[in-house]
């Protein structure tokens, strides 16, 4: 059974169909890349999955349960956690406090898990640093670390590699691959096609709100519709 299933999901803003009749299934323990030109509806689709937008029509299922129209915090507590295109850490809180916000209670605190996440993100020794004093790349890693504290079944990363240095991109790619090894399912929106080709098992391409291709990176990279969407007719 698929972990996440979108069935004919549509969302319009005024006259613009940002997401048009998109159906999608994500199997457990895969890394799925979601790509497409600017304005193709990738972030809108993520906002629909995570409850920030309500679809005009269609349904979304997670682990077989309908999650359409649920509030973002309900969806997060069910196991779908996301990061944002522009990093959104809690800037006036320390690194440790940022991680703690993802726990449901102080009783869930697990020092071993925290250390593991800090090490994975390369943030060890910065526990008491205010998030606003971290570099942009470190903030990106902290945001992912915070999402991981939630121990989600599915992690959605919205352009994790944008605006960060090649060194951190390499670390990030490794982190995503490690997460898959830990049994997580990951949906990555990314413009950096090298990252997508390196880490993703499957790639879905959106254009003008519609799904135009799905397959392995090598398959979609030779797909005529995809080439047209990126380069033009």
């Amino acid at each position: 059974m698929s972990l996440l299933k979108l069935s004919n999901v549509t969302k319009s803003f005024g006259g613009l169909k940002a997401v048009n009749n998109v159906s999608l299934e994500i199997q457990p323990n895969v890394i799925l890349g979601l790509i497409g030109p600017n304005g193709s509806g990738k972030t809108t689709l993520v906002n629909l999955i995570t409850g920030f937008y309500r679809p005009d029509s269609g349904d979304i299922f997670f682990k077989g349960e309908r999650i359409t129209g649920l509030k973002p915090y309900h969806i997060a507590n069910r196991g779908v956690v996301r990061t944002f295109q522009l990093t959104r850490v809690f800037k006036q809180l320390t690194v440790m406090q940022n991680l703690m916000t993802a726990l449901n209670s102080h009783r869930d605190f697990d020092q071993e898990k925290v250390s593991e996440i800090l090490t994975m993100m390369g943030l060890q020794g910065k526990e008491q640093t205010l998030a606003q004093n971290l570099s942009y790349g470190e903030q990106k890693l902290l945001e992912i670390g915070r999402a991981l504290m939630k121990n989600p079944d599915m992690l959605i990363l919205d352009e994790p590699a944008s605006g960060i240095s090649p060194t951190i991109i390499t670390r990030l790619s490794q982190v995503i691959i490690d997460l898959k090894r830990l049994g997580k399912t990951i949906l990555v929106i990314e413009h950096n096609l090298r990252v997508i080709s390196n880490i993703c098992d499957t790639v879905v391409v959106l254009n003008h709100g519609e799904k135009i291709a799905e397959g392995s990176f090598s398959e979609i990279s030779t797909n005529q519709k995809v080439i047209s969407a990126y380069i033009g007719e």
Partner: protein
Amino acid sequence: MEMKVVKHTLYTVISIVVAALILLILPYLGISAFIISFLLSVYIWVTLAVSWNILSGYTGYFSFGHTAFFGSGAFASAVTDFYFDIPYFITIPIAGAVTTGMAAGLGIVTFRLRRLRGQLFALTTVVLTSVSSIVVINNWGDGIVMHSVKAFWPFISIPHIFYTLALILCIASISISIALYRSRLGLNLFAIRDDEEAAEAIGINSFKHKMIAFCISSMLVGFAGAVFGGWLKYVWPETVFSLNYSLFPILMTILGGMGTWIGPILGGVILTTIFQIVAGGEAILNNIILGSLLVVVMIFLPRGIFNLALTGYRRVRTPLRHPP
């Protein structure tokens, strides 16, 4: 780590208890009625500043509604005392219940709507102030004279009773503020303050948290209004619905350090003292001082005295590893 937290909490509790006991016996040490009255006013203002900080400092939702809750609390107490002959001490929780109900009513509507975040929430609290004061003026425009509070112990005078009530309320507000600041709930409120959508994306129910903060804040203001009304004995709309009850707590909190538990206490004590010394409690002069201070604080001390002192302390404590 755990031991450190326990020690810290223990020190805080001991400090509060010792301070409360000293302040509690102060009126019996023969200090003047003026000082008692001044301290009472400090307690009321600190309560207002601390309660404002619980909503606006911790969650980032700027409220101008303190006047509405303060005035409504005072009138809820006066009306139940005068018309229903309910003993004054019972009217205080009633006042708190009324203002909590008002906050819950407003919160249910405004906190659900994403478009009412930020400045628009502040505007709705201004509207609440106008509406509540109009309702009160239309019904009790001439004010209400409350029944005399009966001293239940012969050796405690009426001013001492109100001094004690204001002190208990102030200490309770500070304790609640500290408990929130150090709790899981407080951490979630800070997350909402920094980025509400990101907080929801990791599973924090922002609506529930904001409602809790708003209701606690408004309840404390309602209590303060009731204590103040009982102290004045004559509750008049123009007195208890003065905009100062919205503006002064904001200034006090920003001056002391918004979002910290100690900031509003510092700001409350400093400003009430300045008002008393410089203006002698004169309303017009107070407003001139308020306006000037607001501008100066916003420009030169946007993070408040406490945060400034904390930054200075950290700089002094950290050894200079890289000489200039």
